[in-house]
């Protein structure tokens, strides 16, 4: 008996020790931040909003983004332009954890659920909420532009919220109204001066103008409701930005280099650029765009883009007799100076990466190869031998700049049928002046080439709408805007056209850089001892679509 009692007693004692001390076992993280201890000060809010900036596109995305448009032909071919985009099983824009997708939205919504706990002045709290809502608006704008209708979420969900996360898409009208509400909050509450390249009131205004112009034109060209509401919002946002007198176009008064320099300087102009993604050698945050342009993977501008540049005197290249059969060696003469600062051309010379102490040379385009059309990009190219190396470029990526705000204002006014010569002088003609080009007037004649490209433009201001589109294409080329321009104008068919390259009349030898000796030959069979690079032209079929949502 004695032993049974002992056994029972010991079981009771040990059992009670284990179970009664459950609380005593509490252990809390010692190296991470508990939510209860955060959101106390404005500094906490700032720490959290810092995490939103990862959404800002990289230099590659901006500077190489026109690969998915009719501005560029790429190697390998862009799947969307080719019409071969299939719904992928995973899409970085539609995934759980991607920094560009729903995980990003959840982070913003989590902040918006918690920021008001901070012990800070309302203005400070609202400023940070403004940053969060600005990025949420940007996120949803990207989602709507890519997928159309998407579900709108303004709260975080738990794994039990089955009904919420299995909800169908919301109509784009609902989503875009919410986007507009976010933008209005941001504009109303963001501070006007903040540290360099952070979000402030004017960034929000510029984005509001961009997003509302997108939505207004998308609806107008699809006969959807409330197109004018968004066009008006776009117009007003752009005008408020212009009237604030915070920004001016970058210029040193030298139209032959200003445009080029704006995009290749180490530190981009803060007078023109409203938001940029900064790159700096001393912080070891650099990109590879110069190396990409110089390197093996490649792309080049299409003939259709090159043709859209006017002559230096303001007349149209496409009005010149025989323009269609003008060769690479001829077509760059007396053109809009921005053309010579955007594409490789016979007059362009740069450091020879394989002999940097030697004279600058003409980089012959690798036609048919890395530069399929012949018109290799030089916008954003840093002509510095140290920056041609992969991962060594440090020019900042312009995310949105004043030039675009001017073009938004002009386009919105024109689409609303309200545009005046004064508006043109305030906007497009400022860009023309910086580029050394004559002014655009309301009386400009209708361009049949543009009219054919954009057949759905109508109304009394058709001529001027088309010219504003030309100006926009030229000024903002390679800034990752063209694809969505085509989408909102409902001219995706332009992607299905055969992309053309430089014109060559036939077999023979060609002196591309006009130095007196030929660099290229077009031949029918490979010579046994070729002395010149071989040339071929690519013809590519293309079309477009909205993106499908992956199954999960």
């Amino acid at each position, binding site marked *: 008996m004695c*032993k049974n009692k*002992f*056994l029972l007693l*010991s*079981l009771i004692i*040990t*059992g009670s*020790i*284990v179970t009664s001390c*459950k*609380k005593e*076992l*509490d*252990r*809390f*993280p*010692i*190296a*991470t*931040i*508990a*939510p209860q201890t*955060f959101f106390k000060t404005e500094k906490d809010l700032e*720490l*959290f909003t*810092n995490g939103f900036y990862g959404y800002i596109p990289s230099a590659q995305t901006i500077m190489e983004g026109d690969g998915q448009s009719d501005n560029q032909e790429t190697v390998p071919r862009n799947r969307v332009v080719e019409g071969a985009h*299939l719904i*992928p*099983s*995973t899409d970085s824009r539609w995934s*759980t*954890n991607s920094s560009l997708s*729903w*995980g*990003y*939205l*959840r*982070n913003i919504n*989590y*902040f918006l659920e918690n920021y008001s706990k901070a012990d800070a002045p309302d203005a400070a709290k609202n400023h940070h909420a403004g940053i969060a809502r600005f990025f949420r608006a940007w996120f949803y704008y990207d989602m709507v532009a890519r997928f159309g209708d998407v*579900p709108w*979420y303004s709260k975080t969900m*738990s*794994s039990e919220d089955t009904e919420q*996360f*299995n909800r169908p898409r919301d109509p784009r009208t609902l989503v875009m109204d919410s986007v507009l509400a976010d933008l209005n909050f941001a504009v109303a509450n963001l501070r006007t001066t*903040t*540290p360099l*390249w*952070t979000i402030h009131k004017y960034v929000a205004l510029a984005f509001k103008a961009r997003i509302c112009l997108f939505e207004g034109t998308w609806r107008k060209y699809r006969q959807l409701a409330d197109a004018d509401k968004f066009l008006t919002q776009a117009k007003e946002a752009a005008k408020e930005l212009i009237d604030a007198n915070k920004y001016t176009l970058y210029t040193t008064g030298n139209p032959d280099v200003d445009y080029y320099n704006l995009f290749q300087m180490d530190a981009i102009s803060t007078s023109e650029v409203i938001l940029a993604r*900064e*790159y700096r050698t001393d*912080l*070891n*945050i650099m990109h590879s765009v110069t190396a990409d342009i110089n390197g093996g993977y490649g792309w080049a501008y299409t003939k259709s883009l090159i043709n859209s540049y006017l002559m230096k005197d303001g007349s149209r290249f496409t009005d010149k007799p025989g323009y269609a059969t003008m060769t690479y060696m001829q077509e760059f003469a007396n053109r809009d100076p921005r053309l010579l600062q955007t594409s490789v051309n016979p007059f362009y010379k740069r450091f020879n990466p*394989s002999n*940097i102490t030697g004279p600058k040379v003409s980089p012959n385009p690798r036609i048919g190869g890395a530069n399929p059309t012949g018109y290799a990009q030089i916008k954003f190219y840093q002509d510095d*031998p140290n920056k041609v190396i992969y991962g060594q470029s440090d020019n900042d990526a312009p995310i949105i700049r004043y030039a675009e705000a001017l073009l938004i204002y002009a386009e919105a006014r024109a689409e609303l049928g309200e545009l005046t010569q004064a508006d043109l002088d305030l906007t497009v003609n400022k860009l023309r002046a910086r580029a050394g080009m004559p002014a655009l007037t309301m009386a400009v004649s209708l361009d049949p080439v543009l009219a054919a490209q954009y057949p759905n433009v109508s109304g009394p201001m058709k001529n001027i709408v088309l010219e504003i589109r030309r100006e926009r294409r030229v000024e903002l080329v390679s800034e990752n805007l063209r694809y969505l321009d085509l989408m909102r104008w409902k001219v995706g068919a332009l992607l299905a056209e055969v992309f053309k390259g430089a014109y060559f009349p036939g077999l023979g030898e060609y002196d591309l850089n006009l130095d007196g000796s030929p660099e290229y030959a077009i031949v029918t069979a490979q010579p046994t001892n070729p002395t010149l690079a071989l040339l071929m032209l690519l013809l590519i079929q293309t079309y477009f679509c909205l993106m499908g949502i992956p*199954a*999960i």
Partner: protein
Amino acid sequence: MNNKLRGFVSYTFRNITGNNQDNYIPIFYQTADETRTIQDGRSGIGVGSNQTIQKVLNAYMEYEQTLAAKHYLKVMAGIGSERYHTESNSIFRNDLINTGTPTLQLALDPNSSFTSDGGEYALNSAYSRINYTYDNKYLLELNARMDATSRFPVNDRVGYFPSVSAGWRISEEGFFSGLKSVINDAKFRFSYGSLGNQDVSYYEYIASLRSEGKIGNIIGGTHPPAVYAPGLVSSSLTWEKQNSKNLGIDLALLKNRLSTSFDYYIRDIKDMLTVPQQLPAVLGTAPPLTNAADLRTKGWEMTLTWNDKFNVAGSPLSYNFRFVLSDNQTTITKFNNPNGLIKDWYVGKKVGEIWGMIGDGFFTSDEDVANHADQSELDGYYGFQAGDPKYVDLNGDGKINIGKQTLTDHGDLTIIGNNTPRYTFGFNTSVAWKGFDVSIFLQGVGKRDYWPGDRTGYFWGQYFAPWEQVYKHVIDNVWTPENPDAYFPRFAGWRVGDFGLDAWRDMGVVQTRYLQNGAYMRIKNLTLGYNLPAEIINKLGLKQVRLYLSGENIGEINKTKFKVLDPEALTSSSWGTGKAYPFQRTYSAGLNITF
């Protein structure tokens, strides 16, 4: 009558501290034209320290009694407690003034980086055991333990884990005496028991804000740190239990020369701590780890040992061998997967299942492509032509596809194999005679399927990426109109591994043609030895002199195609399976002298 009561207390205090320093030195190199010197990397110094404190207390009492010679009883009960704390800190600073004096203070970078980590856990336990033996024939053991851990929420902390095992030595029974000359010893064993698993991170149930250090953007002229929303945690999280039933028999036969044992077991894992079913992406974060699954494993294990010696040429030759063979298979018995997604676990799924298409060789011509079911949903970059893989239209709908990848709609997918190693075996034997000895150890897997994986460049060569090495097994086996029976299809880059995970495009389609037989056998060790006779070495004043030759991993039977992958090293990494440090063939010869 004699009995004993004993008590034991042990307390362990462990304090482990460590310091480390890393120095970074940049490498300079010249461009091919020797016009520029480029610096790769930056100089820097990292200094770190870490400390771990572990306190373990164990106290138990034991009571032992033998009654009337035939009854033996032992009772034990105790408590234990463990407290664990670990932390580490490190500082890193770039741009040393002089790489010869790497010191934090003598570096220039104004942005030093700091990292800290740490965690704690606590565990309390109580346990008891009763052993009872009657007449050395009947054996019984009862175990009970209770554990409480800090890793689970306060109401889910305690787990109870009882177990019982019983043995019957039938060979000791009177009725067995007639058999005892043949079966020298026989014992039946049975056990039923429960074990707990708390293998989750220290704070799995607590939501913490995440900080990943500096952001990648430059804002305000610097790149500041940021804090991010916590992931989801489960409101209830508790012990995973493994309940095992085991039935075994041990036999010794033929004058104890042959001994064998056989076990059959069923292991049920209840409330497995695992990631639950996938949820829609719009949730924005991974679903939290929960007690999401039940699994059942059925298996068996067999051991055969033989020991004997006899005389050869007047000297004893002793030899033995041992053979072990085992097998098991696991089935999912509970998992919430309402849509029946085949990528996830579902009830009835066998762990290791490989879903894929049935390969039907290559297309022979464009007409063949046109006449075959439409494969365009599986297109990669090049469309389908002669020389491209062709698949069987299992559901006969005129299209080759993967459906919705669910149990009800899986298109032309079917289960084509299972990557669980089956029939794993080991065999060793040794023979000794007159100072000579030989031993050999073999090991292997009897049955296994293996899919190379779409990033396994070692296997796919240029089909994976044009920049892969040019492998002979690829180059020699490429389809051409002249070589229509080749193993690999029409030659092109980016045909596999370039479409993202689980993409089912082009050669990324899992299919029978490239499914590998992962069965193998390897000679892990072979040793030849000779001990010099005692009478010779004693004269030299030595105790033992041994000469030997030994080889490790000296040969194998590898059933994978072209034998480019090692079936024993199929570990996965982001660059596919098989990119593991290879097993080395090692040969050694030696001389051991004992004085």
